[in-house]
C-alpha cells in the first residue's frame, strides 16, 4: 500500500501546473483519505485502479490543455492573418518540396519490387555475364537459393491471334530462364509461371504475359491463357499472367512479355548464334536470391572469386592482371537497383537536399515566432504574474508553431500533389519505355505529418524559451526601461540570420550550378534546319526477315529512298544522332604504334553509323573520309580490321596532335583502323566526350538495337517527303513496320526533355529557396528592429539623425549578410565538389556551373540585396516614428 501511495503522490504532482494550483491539494487529500479504505475493500486490484485512474487523468488534463492551447493559437493566427499566411506559405513550400523529393526519389530508391516475395534477398551483378557463368553461380547452393538469367528491354513485334490483317505492335519484354519467377518469388495471377521442370529446350514456344498486357491488349479476356500470340512472326502460347503491378525486374523499364531463353532464335534474334551455349557471350544479367543469413558482402566476395576463376579458365578471354573487383552487386529487389556505395551517396544527396529546404523553411518559422514573441513580452509577463507557469507559456507558443507547421503541412501536401500530377504526365523519351510512379500514397502523407510535427516542435521551442526567458517584471512596469537582451556576437538572432543567408545562398548556388550547367551542356545547335530531317525506324528481323534478307534490304533502301523527290540525302544509323550514351555505351580501346606495341588506353563512347552519315548531318570531315557502302559489307567477327571514324577529342586522346588517319586501335575482340576524323558533335551531356564511330555491319543488320535501325532522311525545306518515303518502303515490302517517325527537331526537343525537366525542377527549387529566404530575412530583421524600437527612439530623442540610425541598423545587417555569404559560397563549393567526386553524372554540369561568373557574383548579390532591403524597410519605419512615442510605448 505504501508503494501505491507513493506512486499516487508522484502522479498527483505531475498534473499540469494550473490544475495543480486549484485541485492539487484536494486530490492529494482525498487520496490520503480513501487509500486505506480501498486497500481494505478491494485489495491490490483497487489500488491498481486508483493508480490507473490518476495516471489517465494526468494525461487527459495535459491533452485538454493542449486542445485549449491549440484553440488559443488558432484564434491568435486568425487575429494576425498576415503572419499566419506568410508562415503557412513558407512551411507549405518547404514541406511540399521535401515531400516531392521524398516521394519521387526516396521512395523509388527504397520501394520493393511489387509482388516479388523474395525482394529483400535479391541481388544482381552490375555487369552482364554469359549464360555459362550463371550456371556456375547456380551451383553455389550454400550461398544462393536460386540464380536466374535474363535480358531486358527486348522488343517484340506482336500480332494478335485471329487478327490477320492488323499491323504488329511493338511491345517490350524480357528473355528469362525458366527459374526466373521462382527466384523472384512471383506467383501467377492466372495459369502458371515458367518453371525448370516444365519448360525444356525444344518445347513449343511459350510466353508469360504481364497483368498490364492482359488488361490493355487482351481486354482482360478470361480465356487469355492458352491463346497463341505471334511474336516477331512466330507463334507462342500464353501459359500464364503475372500478378498485378508486376512489370519484371528492373521495372523502371516495364516489361510486358516474358519469353523463355529456350525459345527459337527466329522468335527472338537476341537468342541467335547459340548465345546460351557460348561461354564468352556476356549478354545475360543474373538475378540472384541469397540464401537466408548470407550477406551481400560475403556473396559479392564469393561471386568475385568464382568469376575470377572462370575468367582465368577461359582461353579466349584476354589475360587481366588487375586485382580490382570484377563483380559489384546491386540490390535488385528495389525499383531502381543501385550499387550500395552509390546508394549511400544518392540517399545522402537527397537527405541533404530535403534537410536544406526544410531548415530554411523552419528557420523562417523560428524567426517569425521570435519576432512575434518579442512583441508579446508584456502579455507573457502579465500571464506569468497571474500564475501561469513558464512551461505553460512555452507550450502555448509552441502550439502556435505546431499549428502553423500543420497548416503548412496541408498546404505542402496539396503542392506536392499538384507537382506529382504534373510529374506523372511527363514521359522520358527512351528507346525502351520508362516509367516512374509519382503518385502520392499514404506514406507520403505520414511523412508530411511527421515532418510538420517534428519541425513545428523543434523550431518553435527555441523562440518560445527565448521569449519567456529572464526577468519579465520590467515588461510590466509602465514607462520603465525594458530589459533588452544585450548585443551578443553569437546570439540566437545573429546566428539565425547568418544561417538563413548561408542556407539560402547554398541552395540558390547549388541549384544554379545545376541549372546553368545542364542547360549549357545540353544545348545542341545543328548546322542545318532540324525540321528538314526525318527520322524513321524499322526492324526487319522482328518482321520475320532472316539476316541475309535484312542486309539486302538495308543495302538497297538508301538508293530507293533517294529516288523520292526533294530528298537530298539518306543515311542509316544504329541510333538516332546526338544520342545520349551512358557508361554502358563505352568501350575500352588501346592505340597501337606502327610496331604493334600499345601506347594509350582510353574509353570512348561507341556509335554505329552507316555510309553518308556525316554528310547527311552537314558535318565536314576534318581529315580522311567517312564511311562508304563498302565498309558496311565488312563482317565484324574479329578477323578483319574495321574502319573507324574518330571525333576530335578521341583523335587527340589517342594520337596527340599527330595524324590520326591510318592509326590503329584495338579492343578485346577487334582491331580498328582510323579512316576519318570529325568535329566533336555535342550530344548534350558532355562537352568533350571521346567518340568512336563504327560502321554498320552485317551483325547490326542481323540484330538491330532495341529501338530499331534509324533511317535519317534529309529533304529540302518546306517539302513533305514523308508520304513518299512510306510509299517507297511499302514498295520494297508492304509488311515492314515503320515506327518512331519524327523530325530531328522533334527528336532533339524530346530527348532534351529530361534535361529541361531537371532544369525546371532545380530552377523551381532555387526560386522557392529565394522566396523562402526573402520571407525569412524580413522576419529576422523585423524582429531585430522591433527589439530596438525603443533604443532607436532614445537615440533620435538625443539628436541622432535618421540617416545615422539607418546606417547603424544596416551596418550590423551587412556584417551578418557578409558572414552568411562567405559561409554560403564555401558551403556551395564544398557540396559541388563532394557531389562531383562521388557521381560523375553531375561533373560536367558542375564544371560549367561553378565557372559561370554570372552565377557566382549574381546569386550572392541578389541575396545580399534582398537581405539589405529586408533590413532597410523596417529600419526606415522605425526611424520615421516620433521618438517620444517610441519611448512612451513601453
Amino acid at each position, binding site marked *: 500500500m505504501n508503494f501505491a501511495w507513493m506512486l499516487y503522490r508522484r*502522479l*498527483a504532482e505531475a498534473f499540469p501546473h494550473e*490544475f495543480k494550483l*486549484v*485541485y492539487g491539494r*484536494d*486530490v492529494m*487529500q*482525498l*487520496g490520503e*483519505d*480513501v487509500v486505506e479504505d480501498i486497500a481494505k475493500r478491494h485489495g491490490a486490484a483497487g489500488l491498481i*485502479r*486508483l493508480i490507473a*485512474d*490518476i495516471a*489517465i*487523468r*494526468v494525461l*487527459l*488534463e495535459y491533452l485538454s490543455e493542449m486542445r485549449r492551447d491549440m484553440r488559443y493559437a488558432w484564434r491568435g493566427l486568425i487575429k494576425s492573418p498576415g503572419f499566419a499566411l506568410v508562415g503557412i506559405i513558407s512551411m507549405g513550400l518547404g514541406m511540399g518540396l521535401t515531400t516531392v523529393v521524398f516521394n519521387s526519389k526516396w521512395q523509388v530508391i527504397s520501394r520493393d519490387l511489387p509482388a516479388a516475395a523474395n525482394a529483400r534477398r535479391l541481388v544482381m551483378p552490375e555487369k552482364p555475364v554469359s549464360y555459362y557463368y550463371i550456371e556456375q553461380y547456380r551451383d553455389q547452393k550454400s550461398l544462393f537459393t536460386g540464380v536466374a538469367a535474363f535480358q531486358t528491354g527486348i522488343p517484340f513485334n506482336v500480332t494478335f491471334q485471329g487478327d490477320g490483317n492488323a499491323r504488329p505492335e511493338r511491345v517490350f519484354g524480357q528473355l528469362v530462364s525458366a527459374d526466373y519467377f521462382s527466384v523472384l518469388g512471383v506467383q501467377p495471377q492466372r495459369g502458371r509461371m515458367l518453371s525448370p521442370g516444365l519448360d525444356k529446350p525444344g518445347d513449343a514456344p511459350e510466353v508469360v504475359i504481364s497483368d498490364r498486357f492482359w488488361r490493355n491488349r487482351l481486354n482482360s479476356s478470361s480465356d487469355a491463357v492458352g491463346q497463341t500470340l505471334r511474336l516477331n512472326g512466330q507463334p507462342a502460347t500464353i501459359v500464364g499472367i503475372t500478378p498485378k503491378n508486376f512489370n519484371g525486374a528492373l521495372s523502371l523499364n516495364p516489361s510486358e512479355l516474358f519469353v523463355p531463353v529456350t525459345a527459337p532464335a527466329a522468335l527472338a534474334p537476341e537468342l541467335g548464334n547459340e548465345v546460351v551455349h557460348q561461354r564468352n557471350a556476356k549478354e545475360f544479367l543474373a538475378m540472384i536470391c541469397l540464401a537466408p543469413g548470407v550477406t551481400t558482402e560475403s556473396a559479392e566476395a564469393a561471386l568475385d572469386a568464382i568469376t575470377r576463376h572462370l575468367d582465368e579458365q577461359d582461353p579466349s578471354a584476354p589475360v587481366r592482371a588487375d586485382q580490382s573487383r570484377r563483380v559489384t552487386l546491386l540490390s535488385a529487389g528495389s525499383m531502381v537497383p543501385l550499387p550500395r556505395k552509390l546508394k549511400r551517396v544518392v540517399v545522402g544527396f537527397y537527405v541533404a537536399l530535403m534537410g536544406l529546404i526544410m531548415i530554411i523553411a523552419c528557420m523562417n518559422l523560428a524567426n517569425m515566432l521570435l519576432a512575434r514573441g518579442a512583441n508579446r513580452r508584456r502579455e507573457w509577463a502579465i500571464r506569468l504574474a497571474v500564475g501561469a507557469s513558464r512551461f505553460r507559456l512555452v507550450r502555448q507558443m509552441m502550439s502556435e508553431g505546431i499549428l502553423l507547421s500543420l497548416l503548412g503541412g496541408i498546404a505542402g501536401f496539396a503542392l506536392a500533389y499538384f507537382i506529382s500530377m504534373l510529374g506523372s504526365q511527363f514521359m522520358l523519351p527512351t528507346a525502351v519505355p520508362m516509367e516512374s510512379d509519382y503518385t502520392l500514397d499514404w506514406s507520403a502523407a505520414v511523412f508530411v505529418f511527421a515532418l510538420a510535427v517534428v519541425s513545428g516542435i523543434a523550431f518553435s521551442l527555441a523562440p518560445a524559451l527565448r521569449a519567456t526567458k529572464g526577468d519579465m517584471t520590467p515588461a510590466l512596469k509602465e514607462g520603465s526601461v525594458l530589459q533588452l537582451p544585450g548585443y551578443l556576437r553569437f546570439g540566437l538572432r545573429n546566428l539565425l540570420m547568418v544561417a538563413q543567408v548561408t542556407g539560402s545562398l547554398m541552395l540558390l548556388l547549388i541549384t544554379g550550378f545545376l541549372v546553368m550547367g545542364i542547360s549549357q551542356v545540353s544545348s545542341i545547335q545543328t548546322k542545318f534546319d532540324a525540321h528538314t530531317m526525318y527520322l524513321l525506324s524499322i526492324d526487319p528481323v522482328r518482321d520475320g526477315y532472316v539476316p541475309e534478307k535484312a542486309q539486302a534490304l538495308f543495302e538497297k533502301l538508301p538508293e530507293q529512298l533517294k529516288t523520292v523527290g526533294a530528298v537530298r540525302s539518306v543515311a542509316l544509323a544504329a541510333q538516332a544522332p546526338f544520342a545520349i550514351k551512358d557508361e554502358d555505351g563505352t568501350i575500352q580501346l588501346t592505340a597501337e604504334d606502327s610496331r604493334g606495341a600499345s601506347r594509350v588506353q582510353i574509353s570512348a563512347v561507341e556509335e554505329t553509323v552507316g555510309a553518308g552519315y556525316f554528310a547527311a548531318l552537314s558535318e565536314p570531315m576534318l581529315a580522311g573520309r567517312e564511311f562508304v557502302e563498302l565498309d558496311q559489307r565488312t563482317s565484324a567477327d574479329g578477323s578483319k580490321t574495321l574502319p573507324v571514324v574518330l571525333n576530335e577529342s578521341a583523335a587527340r586522346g589517342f594520337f596527340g596532335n599527330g595524324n590520326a588517319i591510318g592509326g590503329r586501335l584495338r579492343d578485346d575482340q577487334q582491331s580498328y583502323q582510323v579512316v576519318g576524323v570529325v568535329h566533336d558533335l555535342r550530344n548534350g551531356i558532355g562537352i568533350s566526350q571521346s567518340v568512336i564511330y563504327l560502321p554498320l555491319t552485317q551483325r547490326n543488320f542481323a540484330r538491330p538495337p532495341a529501338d530499331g535501325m534509324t533511317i535519317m532522311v534529309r529533304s529540302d525545306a518546306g517539302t513533305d517527303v514523308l508520304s513518299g518515303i512510306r510509299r517507297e518502303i511499302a514498295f520494297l515490302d508492304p509488311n515492314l513496320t515503320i515506327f518512331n517517325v519524327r523530325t530531328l527537331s522533334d527528336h532533339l526537343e524530346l530527348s532534351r526533355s529530361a534535361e529541361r525537366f531537371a532544369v525546371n525542377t532545380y530552377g523551381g527549387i532555387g526560386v522557392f529557396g529565394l522566396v523562402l529566404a526573402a520571407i525569412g530575412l524580413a522576419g529576422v530583421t523585423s524582429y531585430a528592429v522591433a527589439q530596438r524600437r525603443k533604443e532607436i527612439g532614445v537615440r533620435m530623442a538625443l539628436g541622432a539623425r535618421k540617416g545615422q540610425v539607418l546606417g547603424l541598423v544596416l551596418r550590423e545587417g551587412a556584417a551578418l549578410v557578409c558572414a552568411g555569404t562567405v559561409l554560403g559560397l564555401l558551403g556551395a563549393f564544398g557540396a559541388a565538389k563532394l557531389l562531383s567526386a562521388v557521381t560523375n553524372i553531375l561533373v560536367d554540369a558542375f564544371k560549367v556551373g561553378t565557372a559561370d561568373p554570372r552565377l557566382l557574383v549574381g546569386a550572392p548579390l541578389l541575396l545580399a540585396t534582398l537581405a539589405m532591403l529586408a533590413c532597410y524597410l523596417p529600419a526606415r519605419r522605425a526611424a520615421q516614428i516620433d521618438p517620444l512615442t517610441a519611448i512612451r510605448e513601453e
Partner: protein
Amino acid sequence: MTDTDYQRFIPLKAHWFHIMLSLAGGEQHGYGIMQEVLNRTTGKVRLWPATLYGSIKRLIEAELIEESDERPAPELDDARRRYYRLTKLGSCVLDAECDRLQELVRTIRVKQAMVTE
C-alpha cells in the same frame, strides 16, 4: 435561461449526473460527494479521486456547479475542504436530465408490461 442553454448538456455524462445529484441536497465537499454516491448506489459506483476532481473542474467550467463560500455549522465543517453547490443552470440541467430518465423508465415499464402480458 433558454431551453438551448441546458439542452446541450443532455444527456449528462454518468459521472456528472452522480456529482450533481449528490449536490441536489445542498453544499458538499469532494469526499462527501464520493461517499454519498458510494452509499446511494450501495457501492456500485465509486468516483475515483482524480476522476472526481477532473469532473468537478469541468462542471465548474461549464458553470453547472460552483464553489460555495457558505460553510456548514462549525461542528459539521471540515476546514480542510472546499464545498461545492449547484448553480441555477446546474439545477435546470439536473431537472431536465431527471425528467429524461423518468420518461425513459416509464417507457421501459410500459414495454416490460407489454412483454409480460
